[in-house]
């Protein structure tokens, strides 16, 4: 067994706020998939906001502190060495905090001061490793393990894998990526492609895997976000995809909401389904659509999954 395979069997789970709100389907499907695969999640006790995105843009050192508190609880209170964050925003922020604390003395000083004031141990860089849900499944079960466990193959499901921006950018906060064969790529990420293909899916060539969707500007500049999203949806359809697989609640909600908005404001209708990769993998492993929270998605994919033999 590889080190990671052993280490990630039980991880501290940091769902973050989006997974308790609009992204609850991702929360439900991540937990259900983990249970189905025999992996253990211990939710970080009394977790707080990671600082995405508003705090980070007002004062990044406060964001570093907020993220460090989550890692401090995992390490110092729970005795865990790995934090798994399925949300790209949380994952990104914890990685950024780790980088700041390893490289910036001013951040260390601020985090130490606020931690003492708040009455908890200061997080020290390197105490935990932050991973994404994609790393978690890839490094524990892997493609071969998934193939062995498939109950309902994703055969004939054509998928465009959309990773969004925060999973790979900026590159310097992800030192484990771009390390050659077996590692994730920041320019052409492939972990989600690998996992879904192992479950039988047919991945399409999709050139906008990490393209900007307008993200947090969805409220302040909705029209730009809608145009960016509808272009992503149209590119997925033009690639032959029936489904866009997502691994971030912000991306997922943005794609769903602007798919609807594009129809009403631009008169552009797209039919591509938007489904979390954990939902697709969960159904492939034999979980029912409701067990992976398909009913919690904004878009309705029930007929589609039924047609594909996944329900």
């Amino acid at each position, binding site marked *: 067994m590889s080190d990671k395979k052993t280490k990630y069997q039980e991880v501290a789970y940091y769902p973050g706020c989006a997974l308790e709100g609009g992204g609850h389907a991702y929360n439900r499907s991540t937990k259900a998939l983990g249970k189905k695969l025999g992996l253990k999640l211990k939710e970080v006790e009394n977790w707080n906001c990671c600082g995405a*995105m508003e705090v980070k843009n*007002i004062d*990044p050192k406060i964001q570093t502190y907020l993220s460090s508190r989550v890692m401090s609880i995992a390490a110092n209170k729970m005795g865990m060495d790995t934090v798994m964050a399925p949300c790209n925003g949380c994952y990104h922020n914890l990685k950024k905090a780790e980088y700041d604390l390893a490289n910036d003395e001013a951040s260390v000083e601020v985090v130490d001061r606020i931690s003492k004031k708040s009455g908890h141990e200061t997080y020290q860089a390197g105490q935990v490793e932050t991973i994404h849900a994609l790393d978690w499944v890839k490094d524990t079960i892997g493609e071969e393990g998934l193939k062995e466990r498939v109950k309902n193959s994703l055969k004939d499901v054509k998928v465009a894998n959309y990773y969004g921006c925060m999973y790979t950018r*900026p590159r310097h906060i992800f030192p484990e990526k771009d390390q050659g064969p077996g590692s994730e790529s920041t320019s052409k990420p492939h972990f989600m492609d690998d996992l879904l293909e192992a479950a039988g899916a047919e991945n399409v060539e999709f*050139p906008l895997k*990490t393209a*900007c969707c307008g993200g*947090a*500007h969805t409220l302040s500049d909705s029209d730009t976000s809608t145009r960016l999203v509808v272009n992503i949806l149209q590119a997925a359809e033009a690639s032959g995809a029936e489904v866009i697989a997502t691994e971030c609640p912000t991306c997922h909600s943005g794609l769903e909401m602007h798919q609807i908005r594009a129809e009403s404001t631009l008169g552009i209708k797209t039919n591509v389904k938007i489904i979390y990769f954990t939902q697709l993998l969960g159904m492939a492993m034999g979980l029912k659509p409701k067990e992976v929270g398909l009913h919690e998605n904004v878009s309705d994919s029930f007929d589609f999954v039924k047609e594909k033999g996944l329900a």
Partner: protein
Amino acid sequence: MRTIAEIGQRLDALAAAEPVSASAAEYLLLGEEVLEHWVSARGMEPTQEEKEGFRLLALHRQGADKLPSFNACRETCRELAYHYNLLTGQPDHPEAGQRARMMGLVANHLFYFVSGKMETEELGEFCCSSRSVRETVDAGLS
């Protein structure tokens, strides 16, 4: 140089036509023009240099100078260059039409991102390359 609106109209016209390999050079040129607008708007002279054989990539690097949020379109530019290579290297490939169509959508994305950013410069900053507002305020005070 065409206006941003004219570039958008030309992209729409190309998207409405039959996608063909021959469009690759024009899509690349349209991408360069989009970036020229961005670079000019930042008060710089658009570079004539090339990076990895593409002026497009050199323009992107110039546009992202001291502005990490512009890296939000880095991969989009690279995809545009990649599709140009595919189409010019194998103009008669059976999937050339499909490749040209995808190149058009990639060019569209660059256009939407940059034109959106010219209206709201912070586009992209909240997500992958955040910049501290506090740092800006502090810089103004010092």
